[in-house]
């Protein structure tokens, strides 16, 4: 019998490795099949022209990328995407934080409120978007009906390029609110009671308690939400497709929507350009996440 300190026999090590691989195999196969292969395929497609049916035809190198760089349309798309992220992430996270902090106060029926605020989480993007399209309808919508009561003219919520992106952002904020409230509620629940108690004993309450204790202790949850919301915003598709289809005049065409348009919409099957845009999207997501981890995470206090 070897002692505990002696190295394991080679045979047994192989057996352990084999076992480890056997356990890993399913996830490796899934990962390779649905992540690695499509990624490689995207790069491949982005360097090829397409035939009539969208199949790659001849190698064109970096042409799709250089075309994108010189396209004014694509620059607009990038700006629109950035604005959409800004309009959804900042108010989405801050709004949820505000709600959660308010619910910390001793209000009657806070349990009910907490469930109510978390409810949007249960809605699918498609059904929520359909409901919002009813709100926004310029002729018979609820919003313009309300506006007319206070004597304001009808607003083309989705048909005026000034408002369309904001309108979609508002619907997106509402859709994300439930999830954000859930995460922050859980975060607040996990703040150690003694910390809060100590702060209260020191005389902190209200705003002071929130600023110095609750929000910093929520750091990890907030950081998590910012990262997730950014990635979600960059990948939003359903609400844009249902509410505006990227219009009017391209004012709600984000990067993801542009990929869809090039690849599938309007009888187009320009998979080359679409793939190049998808690669750009991937780089943008990677950069955003890297920056967030590099800059924001330093300021996060992990209890």
């Amino acid at each position, binding site marked *: 019998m070897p002692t505990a300190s002696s190295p394991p026999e080679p045979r047994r090590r192989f057996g352990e490795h084999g076992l480890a691989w056997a356990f890993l195999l399913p996830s490796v196969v899934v990962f390779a099949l649905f992540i690695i292969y499509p990624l490689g395929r995207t790069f491949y497609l982005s360097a090829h022209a397409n*035939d009539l*049916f969208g199949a790659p035809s001849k190698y064109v190198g970096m042409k799709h990328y250089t075309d994108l760089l010189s396209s004014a349309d694509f620059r607009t798309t990038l700006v629109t995407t950035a604005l959409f992220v800004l309009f959804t992430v900042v108010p989405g996270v801050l709004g949820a934080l505000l709600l959660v902090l308010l619910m910390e106060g001793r209000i009657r029926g806070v349990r009910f409120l907490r469930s109510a605020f978390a409810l949007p989480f249960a809605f699918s993007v498609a059904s929520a978007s359909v409901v919002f399209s009813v709100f926004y309808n310029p*002729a018979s919508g609820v919003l313009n009906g309300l506006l007319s009561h206070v004597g304001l003219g*009808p607003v*083309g919520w989705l048909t005026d390029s000034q408002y369309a992106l904001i309108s979609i952002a508002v619907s997106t904020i509402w859709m994300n609110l439930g999830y954000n409230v859930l995460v922050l509620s859980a975060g607040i629940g996990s703040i150690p009671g003694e910390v809060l108690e100590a702060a209260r004993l020191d005389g902190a309450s209200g705003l002071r308690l929130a600023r110095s204790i609750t929000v910093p202790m929520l750091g990890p949850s907030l950081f998590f939400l910012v990262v997730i919301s950014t990635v979600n915003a960059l990948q939003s598709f359903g609400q844009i497709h249902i509410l505006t289809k990227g219009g009017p*005049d391209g004012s709600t065409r984000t990067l993801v929507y542009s990929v869809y348009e090039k690849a599938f919409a309007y009888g*187009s099957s320009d998979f080359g350009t679409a793939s190049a845009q998808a690669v750009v999207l991937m780089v943008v997501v990677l950069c955003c996440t890297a920056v967030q981890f590099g800059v924001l995470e330093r300021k996060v206090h992990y209890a």
Partner: protein
Amino acid sequence: MKRSARALAALLVSGLALTACSSSGSGGSSDESGAPAASALDQASGVTTVEFWHSMTGKNAEALTALVNQFNAAHQGKIEVKPLFQGTYDDLIAKYKASVQQKATPAVVQVYDIGTRFMIDSKQTVPAQAFADKDGLSLDDLQANIRNYYSVGGKLQSMPFNSSMPLLYLNDDAFKEAGLDPAKPPTTLAELGDMAKKLTKKDDSGKTVRYGFGAAIYGWFVEQLLAENGALYCDAENGRSGKAGKVAFDSAKGAEIVQWWADLVKGGYAANTGRQTPDAQAAFKAGTVAMHLESTGVLRGYTEAAKFTVGTAPFPKTAADDQGGPIIGGASLWISGPGHSDAQKRASWEFEKFLTSPEQQAAWHTGTGYFPVNSKALEVPADKEWLGKFPQFQTAIDQLKATKPTTATAGCLLGVMPQARKGVETAIEQTIAGTKTAQQALADAAKELQPAIESYNSSVG
């Protein structure tokens, strides 16, 4: 997984087809035209399955299912048609392209009007004319304009099935309220604009409660108005004498139409409900819009949903001296060639013949509102009776009969037609927003489309 299963099935089928071809050297029924004779079906053993992709929803899907069931019952043990809904026309085209790559095309596919050029260029189909010639069948019963749209070089490419035309819809009650006679609808854009001003109603607070006019920002309507004028939408005689290499919608006439639309919106006489067709339809049905452009295909839904009398009038002309007419819209059915057995092709053709026969087209017409592609359908008693009940439908029939088949009313054949339509829609939006003049917006749309046309034409060779 599903895709690979389908690809496997396609492999098996094409393998079978290959062996069938090699073994049937003597009884080979398929000649260079690609259309097998009726004997192909007699020689087939067992049930021949026909996979049929379509884009019909709601009432139209119900009517289609009824027709398919009727056909399957009549051909029990020989042919089975399997209808598969594939989403919108655009979705269907996207999936069809994938199926071509995987060599697993459906036997019959319903493709929208503006996909015609693409379907011809795909070289995946057998022209309907080839089957008709094989059978010595006359296609004269097909309505002339509809036949004109789907014919290239005098040969019918696909079988028209659901054909629609645009109409001017009226809220008769609103007309009477404004002191106008719904029996005297506007016939030109100028008249329509004048009446829209009279029909627009504001309440005491100055809020518009009813707009005179409202239609979805849908490029189809601009195509229609240009055709009414007799103008071409693209070069090479609307792509009928050769491959179109340029669009022509950026003409003075095109700009006039787009400017007219934008002015009505900016003046507060037209509701802008955006590109989404359902939003524009909802506005008309709710009575917030008095005049409205839409396809004949929605008339039945309108008469059932609206709380006012729905009137129909011919689609307006751009000016009184316009010599053209409206273009056929809707979709047609294509039979796949490569990868399909002779029996399948033949069964597909039998199915198409069935769908376009007078009785079935009468059922289709009355069940949906699509125009009957077979002129004989209008003589079927059930159809006549129905027209008596819904006189609004007569407008479309008269309008189609009054339209002379020309290259303008045949519509433009262009590989990237869906993108051209989208370009015009963007131009309308830009003109309404005031960021560009109509002329500039259309010129930019045409310029932006040019690389797509060229790359399409070069990929077709």
